């Protein structure tokens, strides 16, 4: 994929035939497209994806059939076609315990347009084995969640979407405006710092692999990680189940088969001393790359903790001011001091500390604009649903409700997803103060579970414990 495509080289007609190429336009170019052109692109692209995927993705076909949707005429027609997150974990959990990976492949076939007939999962004992079998025998690049709900979800992304993820990475850092192109000048030379394992199949790992290929021309030295090894899906699965059971006071109820129980020790060992290892890593990095430009995928808590630890060590201005920091928000209940940004700036020296918002199911994350809003590039069609009735809100004005989107860059799986987030969405009747046209979200994003969790409702039935059905946010998936 060639990133050097000038914005004018792609016309909207071409984009409709290859909707994922929208990500190749700079943010300024994409957000400057005329409203009618974006509307045309979106409806044409949506129709194409629907037409292409319905015959090949059985789960989509079933949903469309159930909803009586044979064709899409208007954008709103697709609102009932947003997948619930749970569809990506609708397999029986026992398949993992009993190593029934042939059946897990069969399940996954329902969600992808790719041919998985070459995948022989019979010999797989663990999820890691299975993912590696899929990697080597198909085009799939499955992305699994962090398993914090106790069950891994599997999003069947593929090699075909990998370039889009890399374009998305670049788009994240571009500001809107004439010289915005300068923002990412040289980004292909800036090493990526990731405080985690180099390998694995979570969104970060897939992005790193894609960056290695499409951004860094195979130069592995551009990727600096805490650990060269692999983030094990099995370990996350076991860890998630243990933690979930513990949080519910049901540890005694958890039954794990012996081959997974063995992972428990590895999981606990991994947890021990993790905080110290992470701190040493960042100190070492600050020494080795002093004043250099870095790129980093992280989240607010981690960035802040690093800054505090670094400053306590007497380190200031550790990196270049024009470094790239992708930082997920969502404090998960943690309260940061009002001057947290000053603390972070003193250590990192990075000026731009705007928060990002994204999710695994969407090709790229987006960063707060200068007016504190989140804008999605036109390859994303946003939807807003009533949290109770599921009815879509009218596509004008400002509404608060449950956020859904269709990612038109998804080629081999259906890009429609309904998040668990409550957002306030303005359907860009007028451009935002930052200059971008199109819809945008207010920064106040909240998970639905947070308000609906039963705090003082007492019942004798052990059923309605708040269940974390997180749409695992791309930026918070660091374990």
């Amino acid at each position, binding site marked *: 994929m060639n990133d050097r495509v000038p914005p004018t080289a792609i016309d909207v007609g071409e984009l409709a035939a290859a909707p994922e190429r929208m990500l190749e336009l700079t943010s300024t170019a994409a957000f400057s497209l005329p409203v009618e052109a974006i509307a045309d692109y979106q409806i044409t692209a949506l129709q194409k994806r629907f037409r292409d995927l319905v015959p090949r993705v059985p789960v989509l076909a079933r949903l469309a059939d159930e909803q009586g949707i044979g064709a899409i005429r208007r954008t709103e027609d697709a609102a009932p076609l947003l997948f*619930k997150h749970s569809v990506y974990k*609708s397999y029986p959990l026992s398949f993992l315990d009993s190593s029934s990976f042939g059946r897990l492949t069969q399940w996954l076939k329902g969600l992808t347009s790719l041919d998985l007939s070459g995948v022989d999962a019979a010999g797989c004992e663990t999820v890691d084995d299975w993912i590696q079998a899929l990697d080597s025998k198909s085009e799939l690049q499955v992305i699994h969640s962090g398993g914090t709900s106790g069950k891994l979800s599997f999003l069947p992304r593929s090699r075909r979407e990998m370039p889009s993820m890399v374009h998305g990475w670049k788009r994240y850092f571009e500001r809107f405006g004439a010289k915005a192109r300068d923002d990412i000048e040289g980004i292909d030379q800036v090493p990526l710092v990731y405080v985690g394992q180099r390998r694995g199949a979570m969104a970060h790992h897939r992005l790193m692999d894609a960056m290695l290929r499409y951004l860094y021309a195979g130069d592995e030295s551009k990727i600096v990680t805490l650990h060269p090894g692999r983030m094990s899906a099995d370990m996350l699965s076991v860890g998630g189940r243990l933690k979930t059971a513990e949080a519910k006071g049901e540890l005694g109820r958890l039954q794990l088969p012996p081959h997974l129980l063995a992972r428990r020790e590895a999981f606990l060992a991994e947890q021990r001393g993790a905080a110290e290892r992470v701190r040493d890593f960042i100190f070492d990095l600050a020494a080795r790359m002093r004043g250099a430009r870095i790129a980093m995928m992280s989240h607010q808590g981690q960035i802040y903790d690093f800054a505090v630890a670094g400053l306590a060590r007497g380190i200031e201005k550790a990196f270049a001011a024009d470094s790239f920091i992708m930082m997920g928000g969502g404090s998960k209940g943690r309260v940061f001091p009002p001057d947290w940004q000053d603390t972070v700036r003193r250590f990192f020296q990075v000026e731009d500390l705007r928060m990002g918002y994204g999710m695994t199911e969407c090709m790229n994350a987006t960063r707060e604009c200068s007016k504190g809003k989140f804008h999605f590039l036109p390859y994303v069609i946003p939807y807003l649903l009533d949290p109770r009735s599921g009815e879509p809100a009218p596509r004008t004005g400002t509404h608060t409700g449950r956020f859904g989107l269709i990612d038109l860059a998804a080629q081999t799986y259906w890009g429609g997803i309904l998040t668990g987030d409550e957002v306030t969405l303005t359907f860009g009747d007028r451009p935002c103060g930052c200059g971008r046209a199109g819809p945008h979200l207010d920064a106040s994003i909240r998970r639905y579970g947070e308000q609906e969790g039963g705090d003082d409702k007492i019942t004798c039935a*052990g059923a309605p414990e708040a269940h974390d059905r997180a749409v695992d946010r791309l930026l918070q998936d660091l374990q």
Partner: protein
Amino acid sequence: MAEFSAPLVIRGRVIEAADLEFGGRREGAHFATPDVRRHLDELVLATPSALADLYRLSFEEILDYLAALGERLSLSANAYLQQAFELSIRVSGLGEDILRHTYERVGDVFAREAVREIADRTIGIRYLEGWVEVPLANGCRAAVRAFGARSVHIVAGNVPTVSALSIVRNAITRSDAIFKTPSNDPLTAAAIARTMVDMAPDHPITKHLSVAYWKGGDAAVEEALYQPRNVEKIIAWGGLASIRHVAKYIQPGIDLITLDPKLSSTIIGRDAFADEKAMRTAAERVALDVGVFNQEGCLNARVVYAETGTDELGLARLNRFGALVWEAIRALPSHVSSPARALDRALAEELESLRLGSEWHRIIGGTREGGVIVSQIEEPVEFARQLANRVVNLVPVDSLETAIRAVNAYTQTIGVYPESLKTQLRDRLAFHGAQRLVSLGYAGNPVFAGPQDGMEPLRRMCRWIIDESYDPAVVPLASHVPGFRAPDLTGEVP
């Protein structure tokens, strides 16, 4: 402005001036209540000897009081109860007809013979009425009596009967109770308490009941209250969240009795699937255990293990059975069970995802009327604990062993069918943790005069006091025994 007001009732005094508001559940009904933090001094029974007035009552007088109270708890005549009912319609998951049916029967809990049976079967009236002589083999003449205790009841709100039953338990044990009401039912206990105040404001039973709402975990209230000098027993219904607040105050001197949340299930043997007629009978019974109280209770069936086998024939049988269960759920009369306003959103999404994504599950229904998830593998769905709104999961098993092994300490009721199977399985089920076995279709008829959750909460609510009398002529003083040595732990006297 809150539409409902939950008064504070403290020892016969009703305090109505509400100064705090709390949001209710689901439909967002709000209620206002006086700030209990201003009344903490009156709430606690400072001197334990103040229980003495209860001991001037005979057990028959307690029965008289409760029976009279029960008569005043008629929904058509009692305005307090009507208000509790109105609020429940707004916040409860139970339908109006079920709630009416339940509130109309709240008074029955206080009926003389029912209360007598509870007291006698679960404690023994003579232990409540006086000192019971217990001759011991070592020559000691012991006397044992069950005394009341200063207690806090953290009551569950999913079914109003819990409040009524807890008031009965407090009265028959001659205890002092402070009720902490739940946000999903802040009014039922208060309604009964106000009726008591109207009926007999100075009666010791009235004086030994307080009802308050505070937000669970409010340290200003709980730190002051949960002290051994104020409280001896805490009876806590509810889940981890409810217990977690209390647990940090537990210390020697405070006994915590937890009535944890439980889940219930069903085991159906192969005979029930012999033919269509047999299946229909079993399906009706399953529907009752699923649907009663709209599946809001711990006793409701959520997972049904069916010994149909997992081969093609077995699955076909189970799928047919699923259709019959669905039919039977929808046919339940409205005073027993009713459709939800809407299927729980999270559950609806799980059902949709299974329906679309899994060939190992069949979903029948899945609307506000309920639904049946028929597993096509020998395994319940992972979200079984979330099943609500009359949605049940049928799981085929080749052998009942699978069903038995699925039972654990979190299992409360197991409905079993056919009847003979229950006797055959009951010891095994008990070993695994089951606490109540019941004929299929009767899960919704709990026995109040028996054990609960694998224990005897009424006996635990009492302080069991022993008075040991020795006659030196029978048991010589130790100093008079040659070669005395301390008795060993078996209690044998040398």
